[in-house]
């Protein structure tokens, strides 16, 4: 049975190390994932927080990242390689392009979901904009921000298999070699490894999410209210609201 043969391939110590071993390819796969996620976070988180906090440029960024999502990653990679040649950075670039939209969406919608009254209260008690962002908005938005990062990480891990086509390695090599030699056991083993890595990463991030989100805040509790900055509310009432809560 194919599934059992693939499992046997994975647990066979002979396939663990060496040039074509599971371990070095796993390490490379994690390297590609880490670099791409790092670049995507460096761009996606600030952009998401800025538009989430200010509400400015929202439509433009959403339209832009929405159209990014429609880009076929492998096609984009081959297109870039036409100009740059093979290498690590074209891969990191296209994987970051893939991961930035969910990260921005998570950060933006996270901030957007924070109760306006809470923010107004923070402002009323004299917090600076940075303090509001860092001490009120981000902690309350964390479930959605981390949700975006989780989704981006899964997409990168699954898509980083294309690295194997362009002179790099990673777990995708098992899929490509399996298909090239019509050895479907190896291809299936590769698919299992990628899926297992994605599940493991998702589990780990779920754990992180649980640990860093402040008590009392969960995905359901931060309710979206209509943005009404120009609608003046008496500072006193919101102030009591926050001290009371």
């Amino acid at each position, binding site marked *: 049975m194919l599934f059992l043969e693939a499992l046997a391939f994975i647990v066979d110590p002979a396939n663990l190390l060496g040039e074509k071993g599971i371990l070095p390819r796993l390490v490379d796969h994690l390297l590609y994932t880490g670099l791409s996620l790092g670049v995507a976070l460096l761009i996606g988180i600030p952009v998401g927080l800025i538009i989430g906090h200010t509400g400015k440029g929202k439509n433009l960024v959403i339209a832009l990242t929405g159209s990014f999502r429609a880009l076929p990653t492998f096609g984009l990679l*081959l297109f870039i390689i036409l100009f740059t*040649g093979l290498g690590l950075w074209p891969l990191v670039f296209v994987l970051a392009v893939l991961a930035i939209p969910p990260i921005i969406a998570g950060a933006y919608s996270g901030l957007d979901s924070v109760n306006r009254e809470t923010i107004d209260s923070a402002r009323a008690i004299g917090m600076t904009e940075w303090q509001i962002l860092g001490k009120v908005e981000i902690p309350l938005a964390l479930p959605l921000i981390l949700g975006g990062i989780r989704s981006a990480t899964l997409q990168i891990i699954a898509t980083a298999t294309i690295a194997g086509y362009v002179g790099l390695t990673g777990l995708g090599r098992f899929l490509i070699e399996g298909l*090239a030699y019509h050895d479907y056991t190896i291809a299936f083993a590769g698919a299992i490894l990628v899926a297992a890595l994605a599940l493991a990463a998702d589990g780990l991030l779920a754990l992180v999410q649980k640990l860093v989100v402040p008590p009392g805040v969960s995905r359901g509790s931060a309710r979206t209210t209509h943005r009404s900055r120009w609608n003046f509310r008496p500072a006193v009432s919101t102030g009591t609201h926050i001290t009371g809560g």
Partner: protein
Amino acid sequence: MPQHMKRRIIAGIAALGLTASLAACASGDPLGGNGSADLGSLTIGSQGFAESDILAQLYGQALAAKGYKIDYAPSIGSRETFIPALQDGSIDLIPDYAGNLLYGADPKATATSTVDVMAALPAVLEPLGLVVSDAAQAEDSDALVVTKEFAAANKLESIGDLKPIAKDITIGANTEFEGRSYGRSGLEKIYGVTGWKFKAIDDYGGPGTLSDLLKGNIQVADIYTTTPSIKQNDLVVLKDPLNMIAAQNVVPLFNKDSYSVAIANVVNQVSNRLTTAELMDLNEISAGDSKPSPEKVAKDWLTKMGLL
């Protein structure tokens, strides 16, 4: 099976469209017909990439000029699809490549030189109801290619010259190269070239492979002999005197019932003039900025060669 049928239906529709446009061409062509009566009609298939489309047009237009009525069924697909299409008479002729044709029909075949492959083909094709005419000199095979500078620095002419530097080189090719008869085992057994590193670049000798070769990330690349980048970058194709890489001469493949000596004579005139350099030029023209149709590329060449 349903996919198979669907492909044929699509090919059929495409052929209908082309027939209509070609019929219009033929009637207005003063060179067409040679004054002779209708010699019958042939449907010519192609495999679905630019070079195959050009070859189909070369043979088709040369036959049309002699008075045959030609239909085209472009982009039929790979050998698994076009062999049955030939056998059931959906198409009468398709340009193929000698080595791949032989190994496809007889996986145990061992012939590699052009002479040996062509000698082995008739016996293998006979039971399938297929027959080939003369092979062209033009060959679209895998080739081990180096830059001019690297060849000069290491005095490289043929594949065997890689032996003394084998431990310092990286060969870039598609994943399956390593396991092929001309990969690790062939290079070691036939030329004693062993100890080289391998970099899998799965773009069939395309832009990625080329840029890595030019940058020196790899020293040897597997690039097809009719790829225009060889000429454009002054690359050196290493000679293969011991025929490690199977010959892939262009060879017209017929349904036996469609084949006649008269038809073969016309087709052979085209094959006899077609060299690897000529075919590379045709590919280059076809990929050029103006993106001329295979029909136009073929017509210009046949006119230049005086075959129309």
